[in-house]
């Protein structure tokens, strides 16, 4: 069984958008360490799977992100060695219900069934620099966001080092490097596709719950 762990606020723009909030109650100051969350097993699904939205869920944010897949146990690894633990990369859609309050863990916002579509793996040897990949979100065939992992706050290597300092990642575990600011909003009926240059795509349709297959 795998652990899928993601990082909040790891795009420069996402961080900038929160800077004022970080100074206020209940935060009072910016986080020093990566802000992490877990996408549990019930959220994982493949490209092509329909994702059901519960009746109380009107809209969800697309969650374009690069997933780093581990090939061997990474425990307390250095930034310099970090990429040697990587098997490859996947396009992931870290579906999220918008939430301004980031005090409590995002259970209802990020942990619903099917909220973590994961695309097919591309081996690391084919991805020379994970910190310079175009990250695009398509909704119903229309390009809605064109971003890049060049805008990460912590590079992929830095993030691996900071996470594995206390949390070992094992073969098959996935680290999500962050979602950019202003994610496109999605509704039931939409087909959303996350595309990462040189890595691949993950495409899913959102449906009203009860109609998911």
């Amino acid at each position, binding site marked *: 069984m795998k652990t899928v762990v993601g990082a909040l606020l790891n795009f420069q723009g996402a961080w900038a958008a929160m800077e004022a909030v970080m100074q206020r109650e209940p935060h009072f100051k910016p986080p020093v360490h990566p802000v992490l969350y877990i996408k549990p097993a019930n959220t994982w699904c493949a490209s092509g799977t329909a994702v059901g939205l519960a009746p109380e869920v009107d809209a969800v944010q697309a969650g374009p992100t690069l997933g780093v897949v581990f090939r061997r146990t990474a425990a307390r690894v250095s930034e310099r060695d970090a990429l040697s633990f990587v098997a490859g990369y996947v396009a992931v859609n870290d579906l999220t219900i918008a939430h301004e309050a*980031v005090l409590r*863990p995002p259970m209802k916002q990020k942990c619903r069934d099917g909220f973590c579509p994961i695309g097919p793996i591309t081996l690391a040897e084919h991805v020379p620099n994970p910190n310079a990949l175009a990250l695009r979100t398509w909704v119903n065939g229309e390009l809605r966001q064109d971003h890049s992992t060049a805008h990460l706050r912590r590079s992929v290597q830095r993030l691996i080092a900071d996470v594995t300092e*206390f949390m070992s990642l094992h073969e098959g575990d996935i680290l999500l490097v962050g979602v950019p600011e202003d994610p496109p909003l999605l509704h039931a009926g939409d087909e959303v596709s996350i595309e990462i240059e040189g890595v691949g795509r993950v495409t899913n349709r959102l449906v009203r719950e009860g109609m998911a297959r």
Partner: protein
Amino acid sequence: MRTGRVVYGAAVHQCTPYEHGQILLDDGRVLDEHQVQWLVPFEVRTIFALALNYADHATELAAKSSADQGQFLKAQVSEPVVFLKGHNTLCGHNGLTRRPSDANFMHYECELSVVIGREAKNVPRARAMEFVGGYTVGNDYAIRNFLEPYYRPNLRVKSRDGCTALGPWFVPAGEVKDPMNLRLTTHVNGALVQEGNTRDMVHDIASLIEYLSSFMTLSPGDVIMTGTPKGSVDVKAGDEVVCEIEGLGALRNTLIADWSLTY
């Protein structure tokens, strides 16, 4: 029958309790509990844990916090504060857990841990207990001085390697008459430091299953660690921590220092 999973002779075995604290391996051998390495007694899927699910523990933490934080803690309990832990955190009975050198307040949390037995989605409270497969004792370690108020309790506090001890036994639900009336204790180096009863949970087991299954599907092997009563004391490297729940067993863990990880 309650079961454990152990390593003996470099092979994994199932075991059951025998006489005088001994264990009976699946192949008939009788051993002392210290002759084996104990694994987590079931295949774990998602690890859920509750913060502030005993009113006395919430009050205790509030007393140690600023006034603002104290008010926040009280407001939190109207809806369960649930967080997730990674598989890297798991260890079994008689396990070793690292206390980092820069921790200044690391504490155990003795918790009734509920193992889901069958798939649960949109389960009403009245039927929730039908979805419980069994129980085990959990120790949900935390390092309080690593708290940051973002997705709190943050993973650096709670999702650390070896910081979720579970065991020794998986106890089938049928063997536990009233899971909402079990005494919990923690002893550190033999001294009683924590004492409570599961009847004092803010959100009981049935409510937690109803709550979680209202927005996500629970599956066999999911474990819900239901929170801890008051009695948080800083533990140091070398301390032996024993969490015990009436009728379920006693889960032992020993703290180790950073230096034991250097080479």
